[in-house]
């Protein structure tokens, strides 16, 4: 078990910077997930920790040792790979014991550890199978057992569930969590699947374009995203973003406005362009909006497409007068007159229906239109807040 510290780690290739000034401090026994879109540098960051890639700049510490230039074998790490990477010419026993045999452990010790690891991942009685004779989930368990027997200080897992089918993925997800609880080892986990990140981690490190965007517990990333990228990446379906201009006493979006006193927040002045962010579950139909303490004024909209998911229904809303469906919606682009709303499955609603919706002001996020940095979470003005719910400004996160 050990801390892992990255100090200004940068990896440049000839033409691109894959990892840009990464600073991380991962605690002993912590489960940290690197999450981000494909090609964001999360795997490269992990490779620098593993020693498979040497960073161009910066230092890496595992425990108290600096390991920046050490080869992988001397770092006290074990890794589970995305493509599983079992040695095809060795049976399960040889695969699991590979690292121990390289290190000349005694036969009895190897047997003991292999047996123990096989028991943890439930692989009993498969010791002489070849990898090609096993299913995807079994292979993945062998790969995890191979990492377990080494009793490493740090586990690195590079999208270990990516090649499994959906059902098995969910199953292995819970098994990994159980494993972490049992071993209490530092685990660094890479995934592009934000659901995996949310469910498994102690903390999530959101990475984009080689830069660390935010590292925080999953719910903090969800409720208080540090910037527009984190807000859009964490949560499914994604947060709605609408551009707005700050005016005296309110935010003017193209088709609606939200009451807001700019003087209560530092860094926002009338005339500024901001991006207003609101999650689909924080938009309510007028008729179901009872109990929302800080509602916005009514916003007129027309329903476009309904997506019933069984437990909920996603409703695409078009605000404003232009009810023609614009093509950029189909392309998945955020559009200023589009809002995605999430309603109960038993709600009476149809496509092409004129409705009035409200937003929950306590759940609205404001981002700087240029930098994307979060300016404010929750638009309850200090003055107008009658009681309770304290202001949640940026930087208040625990």
């Amino acid at each position, binding site marked *: 078990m050990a801390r892992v510290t990255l100090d200004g780690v940068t990896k440049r290739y000839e033409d691109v910077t894959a990892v840009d000034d990464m600073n991380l401090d991962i605690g002993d026994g912590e489960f940290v997930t690197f999450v981000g879109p494909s090609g964001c540098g999360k795997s490269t960051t992990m490779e620098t920790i593993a020693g498979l890639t040497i960073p161009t700049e910066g230092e890496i510490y595992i425990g108290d040792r600096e390991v920046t230039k050490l*080869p992988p074998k001397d770092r006290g790490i074990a890794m589970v790979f995305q493509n599983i990477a079992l040695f095809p010419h060795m049976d399960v026993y040889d695969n699991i014991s590979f690292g121990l045999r390289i290190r000349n452990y005694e036969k009895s010790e190897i047997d003991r550890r292999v047996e123990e690891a096989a028991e943890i991942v439930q692989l009993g009685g498969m010791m002489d199978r070849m990898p090609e004779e096993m299913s995807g989930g079994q292979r993945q368990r062998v790969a995890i057992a191979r990492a377990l027997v080494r009793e490493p200080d740090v586990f690195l897992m590079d999208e270990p569930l990516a090649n499994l089918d959906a059902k098995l993925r969910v199953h292995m997800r819970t098994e990994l969590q159980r494993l972490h609880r049992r071993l209490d080892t530092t685990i660094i986990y890479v995934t592009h699947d934000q659901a995996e990140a949310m469910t498994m981690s102690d903390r999530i490190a959101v990475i984009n374009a080689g830069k660390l965007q935010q590292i925080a517990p999953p719910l903090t990333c969800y409720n208080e995203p540090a910037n527009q990228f984190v807000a859009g990446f964490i949560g499914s379906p994604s947060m709605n973003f609408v551009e707005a201009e700050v005016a005296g006493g309110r935010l003017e979006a193209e088709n609606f406005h939200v009451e807001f006193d700019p003087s209560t927040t530092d860094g926002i002045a009338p005339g500024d362009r901001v991006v207003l962010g609101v999650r689909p579950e924080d938009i309510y139909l007028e008729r179901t909006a009872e109990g929302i303490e800080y509602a916005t004024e009514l916003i007129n909209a027309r329903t476009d497409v309904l997506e019933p998911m069984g437990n909920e229904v996603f409703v695409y809303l078009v605000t404003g007068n232009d009810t023609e469906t614009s093509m950029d919606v189909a392309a998945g682009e955020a559009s200023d007159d589009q809002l995605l709303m999430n309603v109960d499955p038993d709600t009476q609603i149809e496509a092409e229906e004129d409705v009035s919706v409200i937003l929950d002001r306590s759940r609205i996020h404001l981002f700087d239109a240029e930098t994307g940095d979060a300016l404010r979470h929750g638009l309850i003005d200090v003055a107008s807040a009658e009681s309770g719910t304290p202001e949640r400004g940026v930087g208040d996160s625990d």
Partner: protein
Amino acid sequence: MATETETTQTQAERDQSDDSGPFQRWVSGSISEPGRAYRPMFWLVTVFFLVTTLFPFYWLFMVALTPEGQLQNVVFTPNGFNPGVFIEIFQILPFHRYMFNSFVIATVTTAFVLVVASLAGYVFGRLRFPGKNPLMLLVLLVSFFPPAAFFIPLNDLFNTNFDILEPVLSNGSLYNTPYALVIPMSALFMPLAIFILTTFYSQIPDGLEDAARVEGTTRLGALFRVIIPLSAPGVATAGVLTFIGVYNEFFFSFLMTDGQPQNWAPVLQGILGFQGQYQTLYNAMAAASIVAVLPMAILVVVAQEKIVSGLTAGGLKE
């Protein structure tokens, strides 16, 4: 050949009842049923290759069985019967010593080529560095030169005495030592082996090497424990091609030793040894040729499965 054409013609005649000529009928029959044309062509070509490759061996065998001095009228049967020649060749000359020499030279060369070409193949196949392709071309360039181009400078070099070699070699020169053959032949067969192994090693997924390194091997350890075992068909192909190539090589084998078995003369010199100044023992030469070929034939039969998969497939699934 003639019989095959006839059978197809009779078949065609049976099928066709109009009064066009036999060749026309055969053609139209072949068009409607192409197998009719392909089958005789297959046998034609197969028989041709079998005759051109195997008949010389048959004839060699007949010449070997024919007693000395009666080498007239040998076509399909030997002129007399003398199987004892296969014993005599070991009595007239220490032919076994020549074979042993060739085996040692071929084995050492193959081992050396495989080790060096594996390292080179790893570098060319798995690492990225500037100037890789020009360097690879340079290596392949060696194999474009005719071996004769290297001979005179090498022969000169190997006949030069180097004091530094005195403790290892009696007179300090490489002439009449196995090194005189191992060194140039390693150089000649190295490019091919590097090329084959580069192709194979480059196809091993990066993840496997990474896994081995994380598990505790060095890069070299990963090469020998994971990459080479997984590239076994490629390594076998490169090894067998080198071994056969060195064993069968003529030019350097003929000129880099003085032909004495104790001076590491290879099997070629053993065969030519039956050709004296006043007398040429054709039957012994033929018998020696057959004996010399046998080990290679056995090697090819044993390794053929690997070689075929090595030459054709090369694809490895993870």
